[in-house]
């Protein structure tokens, strides 16, 4: 018996705030003022951001020219896979009505090309692209090896289907003088892609390194001739190639092709005038009922030409403000009711208390003996 008090002490739960669920806590208070102010603040913020976005988007110029049908003859030719090494060029003149200020970027845009199909997006060899083992074509089905069993470099469906149109933009100063707009083909890909994820074999002569390999079946020239002029842009390091290898999220996508080299006439961007795209049409799109176009666009801090972000911000802001107005009105209506019922309940309280008191002192016997 005497032992029990000692046990008591040990069994008594520890009185810590955590164990008693009494940790000091901050309680979220949703008073009308806080809620409304949060709502209004959000609304105002959204509208402000939206306005800024919309205004800045106004300065963006973008031109998209869909050349699938303009170059119908080429498209038709490309329908037949056998004609794949036949040249086909087409020229698309257009007029630039407002000048494009600042950096101008040229994109190609494909419609209906599923770069995100799973089998497709897996069909590449990272070891090969890193030049760790350029003969590693294991994951590249169905473009692992060519007909005579030589491994394809670069292997895989992604590399095989690389966009291979050549697009040249010319500025038509007058009917006789066509100036080729200077374009940069570097600085298109992610820095990390170019310097970490893609590596050429450490050799001066790439063609020797790649000897014994086959080019992808749909390519016109082997990988080591992608850009013979610039060794830093050749082989796996070719930026067009790298850009292509980053698979797009949707079947309609835009990829950066060139950026304007701002010299001479083009120091401020593209001036107003007549231009033409000279396209060597190699990439068949009609075979998968797709389309392709070329896009010229300027950029600002907030992205491209789309109004989407701006509009959505505006919409959200407006809806938030509307909602806060509704809350405010409901609150006012309630307030009228409550001020009345509050008085009632105030009167109510003492009576209730009295009732409770009565109940406490209730006698025991009376009602049972029936």
């Amino acid at each position, binding site marked *: 018996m005497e032992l029990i008090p000692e046990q008591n002490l040990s*069994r008594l*739960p520890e009185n810590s705030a955590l164990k008693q669920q009494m940790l000091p806590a901050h309680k979220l208070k949703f008073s009308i003022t806080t809620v409304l102010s949060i709502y209004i603040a959000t609304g105002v913020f959204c509208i402000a951001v939206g306005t800024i976005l919309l205004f800045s988007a106004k300065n963006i110029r973008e031109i998209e020219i869909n050349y699938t049908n303009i170059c119908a003859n080429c498209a038709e030719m490309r329908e037949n896979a056998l004609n794949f090494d036949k040249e086909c060029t087409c020229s698309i003149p257009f007029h630039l009505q407002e000048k494009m200020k600042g950096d101008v970027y040229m994109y190609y845009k494909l419609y209906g090309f*599923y770069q995100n199909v799973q089998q497709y997006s897996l069909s590449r060899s990272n070891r090969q692209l890193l030049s760790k083992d350029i003969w590693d074509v294991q994951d590249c089905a169905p473009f692992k090896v060519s007909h005579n069993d030589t491994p394809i470099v670069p292997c895989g469906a992604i590399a095989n289907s690389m966009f291979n149109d050549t697009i040249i933009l010319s500025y038509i100063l007058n009917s006789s003088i066509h100036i080729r707009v200077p374009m940069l083909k570097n600085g298109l890909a992610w820095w990390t892609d170019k310097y970490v994820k893609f590596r050429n074999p450490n050799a001066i002569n790439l063609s020797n390194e790649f000897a014994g390999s086959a080019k992808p079946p749909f390519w016109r020239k082997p990988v080591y001739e992608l850009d013979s002029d610039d060794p830093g842009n050749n082989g796996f390091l070719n930026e067009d190639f790298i850009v292509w290898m980053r698979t797009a999220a*949707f079947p309609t996508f835009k990829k950066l092709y060139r950026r304007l080299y701002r010299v001479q006439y083009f120091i401020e961007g593209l001036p107003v005038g007549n231009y033409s795209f000279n396209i060597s049409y190699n990439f068949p799109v009609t075979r*998968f009922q797709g389309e392709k176009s070329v896009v010229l666009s300027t950029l600002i801090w*907030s992205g491209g030409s789309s109004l989407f972000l701006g509009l959505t911000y505006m919409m959200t802001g407006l809806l938030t403000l509307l909602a806060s107005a509704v809350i405010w009105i409901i609150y006012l209506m309630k307030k009228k009711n409550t001020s009345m019922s509050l008085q009632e309940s105030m009167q109510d309280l003492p009576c209730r208390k009295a009732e409770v008191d009565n109940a406490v002192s209730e006698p*025991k016997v009376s009602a049972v003996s*029936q």
Partner: protein
Amino acid sequence: MDCSLVRTLVRRYCAGEENWVDSRTIYVGHKEPPPGAEAYIPQRYPDNRIVSSKYTFWNFIPKNLFEQFRRIANFYFLIIFLVQLIIDTPTSPVTSGLPLFFVITVTAIKQGYEDWLRHKADNAMNQCPVHFIQHGKLVRKQSRKLRVGDIVMVKEDETFPCDLIFLSSNRADGTCHVTTASLDGESSHKTHYAVQDTKGFHTEEDVDGLHATIECEQPQPDLYKFVGRINVYNDLNDPVVRPLGSENLLLRGATLKNTEKIFGVAIYTGMETKMALNYQSKSQKRSAVEKSMNVFLVVYLCILISKALINTVLKYVWQSEPFRDEPWYNQKTESERQRNLFLRAFTDFLAFMVLFNYIIPVSMYVTVEMQKFLGSYFISWDEDMFDEETGEGPLVNTSDLNEELGQVEYIFTDKTGTLTENNMAFKECCIEGHVYVPHVICNGQVLPDSSGIDMIDSSPGVSGREREELFFRAICLCHTVQVKEDDPEDTIDGPRKSPDSKSCVYISSSPDEVALVEGVQRLGFTYLRLKDNYMEILNRENDIERFELLEVLSFDSVRRRMSVIVKSATGEIYLFCKGADSSIFPRVIEGKVDQVRCRVERNAVEGLRTLCVAYKRLIPEEYEAACNLLQAAKVALQDREKKLAEAYEHIEKDLILLGATAVEDRLQEKAADTIEALQKAGIKVWVLTGDKMETAAATCYACKLFRRSTQLLELTTKKIEEQSLHDVLFELSKTVLRCSGSLTRDTFSGLSTDMHDYGLIIDGAALSLIMKPREDGSSSSNYRELFLEICRNCSAVLCCRMAPLQKAQIVKLIKFSKEHPITLAVGDGANDVSMILEAHVGIGVIGKEGRQAARNSDYAIPKFKHLKKMLLVHGHFYYIRISELVQYFFYKNVCFIFPQFLYQFFCGFSQQTLYDTAYLTLYNISFTSLPILLYSLMEQHVSIEVLKRDPTLYRDIAKNALLRWRVFIYWTFLGVFDALVFFFGAYFMFENTTVTSNGQIMTTNINMMFGNWTFGTLVFTVMVFTVTLKLALDTHYWTWINHFVIWGSLLFYVVFSLLWGGIIWPFLSYQRMYYVFIHMLSSGPAWLGITLLVTVSLLPDVLKKVLCRQLWPTATERTQARNKCLSVEQPTVFMLSQTSSGLSF
């Protein structure tokens, strides 16, 4: 040890079916009976090994895996994992294998550890040494080698190694004391008796010379029943046959006390001992939340399957155009082309299943289990529920039912020991109409001058005085109280000392008896001890009177009385009988019945427990006859109970009434307050008691179950005798239903049921009439329905005169009535166990009548008042927490998987994953797991104080309010909406905007094209933020832990993503995430987009919440608002409205 002992018995040994006969015959000491005895069928018995472990070293892995994968959820995940392994799926098997492996391993380790403990306990049990008698010598052997028929010697404080028939002890009277604390929790010493003919065998040699056989029934689990017979063979005579009853049986698990050593013969061994048989594995109770969770799971499974089906079908529709099926840029391999279309479709279906399987996350099970397990500690830690007096805190025996505590609709409570203290105080006695009140009634404490008594009536005459003394002697003698002798020397001097020197402590399994004996001690008669079958009492003149105890007709709950037959020093034989008034009065032929009855009824109304005392003088012939009758009944092997009952019936008649006693059983502290609070909380409280109606009704009034305004409806035997059951029921239902229209409207608004407040009183007999299936079949269910209908409309129901099984019956009746309400049973005694096991939640009050109830309960509390905090605070919290946990888990996985589903429409249904493998795996494991776990442990939507103060808040969560279909669908749609926002928000950003990165971070002014992984990462980032912030908005109780965990997990996500994308991980075959996150963050529009999308997905939910709070606030929300009113004192408080409450989400 105690606990592990029980755990050792987890598994019931399945004895072989062979040799299944009704009784078994045991040769004591393996000695063949002399020829001529009946031929016995030899039987095989198991050895004394106890096997409670589930696994052996060898079969652990296969068996444990098998057990684990029998659970549907685990099996589902296994299937998904296997599918991922076998077919070429988009997601790596690691994503589902890793969590599954984790869960399985943790469970296996836990179960393995538990089994290892069981093995250890088993070994300790099986190897502990036991003393045998072999050829007249004492031999030590391991316990497991013990066989049926062995003669065993047990010393003091040892536990019995198996079930033994008590042959002899070192005490001359052949008794021994035993505690069964580890068996049924009763710590009092019980006396067992050796077989009469063998009690003289004190040495090993003597015992070895014993030649006897024992016939007894086959083992059965009832601890208190045993029927057997011993045949002792002497050299010449016919064998002596003696009956064996449970008083001769020493059970395994019990401990020998106060006796130096005993000899016994093993009759049940190993897994056949009563203890082993008695370990009943409690049936698993499942909470309502778990059930809803399973329903939701099925819904999600259907969603999952339909998603996979839709995608598969669409895939083939989409591919029906050849330019899509196999465009030039994505040709198929030869093997792919040649595969069977249906096989391909099936594989695709499986692949889609795998892709979307995260919608039912493994981690939900883990989190729910953890929440339950960890959360249950809050109950046992709770200081408010700790009882200083007894040093007991609440016990949690299961953590599966925490949230069920917040859903209780019916409480079935025992009266004695639960509502009342079960701390009896002798209040008064009435002898032939004269009332005696001891001066001091102080919880059994005796004050020095307590020998005086108050006589309320005039002093009785001489004959009255005789009667009075006879009455006191009767109380002194008619009981089964034991005296615990603290100090042997003290007791020798005892008689010389004043009676109130506390030399003795009375111990009994029934507190009433102790109170009576103590009470009568204060009135001058002290019971000293039972010695050599002589009961010694100290009378008023300080003389010792000795009575020889001839027979004890022990108490049972059917007879509701007990008797002793004693022989006084003068040679007169008395029968003293003590029992409930209803069982005594019909057997009385003499005495002032009317006065006593009047007094008894008055006392009963005041809530006192009354007992009547009667006596009868037996002439020796009568005694002989009675003795023979008893002996005959006791020897009977079959129907012994019945025969005994008949014998008792025969002996206990023609009594002379002496008087009545009244013992007060005080209400437990704050019992009334608790009941009131529970009723306000919308819980119906039923009192189920074995007590008589008046006493029980008085208690009900005292604890405010019935109010003054309550109109009592009686459905008792008395009433049924007058009218037929049919009429009574219909009449009652008419009364009740007349006002039910107004009543049902009132039920929501709490207290205002004063007008038509009905209380029903029903007794056991009436109940069994209602429950009894009728011959004509059809009407029986009608009665039941009618009865339920009446009960539903009564605010309180009192069921008195209930047998334990009837209690369970009532619980069952309500449990399976058409609303399927959640029931809770609370009780403290062994008689409440059945109802505790039956109810959805069983709560044991750690009381005085042993710990059986506490052990069989799901939760045990020290006092009834703790029920209030248990339900109103803990239950409420647990329910809020777990329902949010469940809903949130489904919500966040809808958010997670629905974009994945949408993405299939944009990637040609090619099972392309939207998120990287690491994100797929870690989303549920680490990015979003801790905040919800902590929320589900810490959340307090209103403070503890408020919940205690305002019990009506409990109604807000009644009927599983937070897991109804409406709420579930709301959450699911919220998830779908958010998913749509994430996906299409990001889609339009990608589609129309050149998502660029400004050149400040990069060296040159580059703008980049973002691929599919960036898209996925963008969606994922928005999602992680939205989902976490959604929880943040739902959190009302922000402790530093919440802050830490919520902001911490967001930070963790960012840091992880930076690391995951910032390093070339050598173990990965692909580097598709390399710098993706960093590039995304370096782009301005991405930031703008993330902010916008998070805002857009959160706003509607906030708006809905605000509007609902304003327009249809629940009571809880109003309280939240009111608290602010008190604390902030701003008139512009939200939602201080008095509109009638509507139920909203």
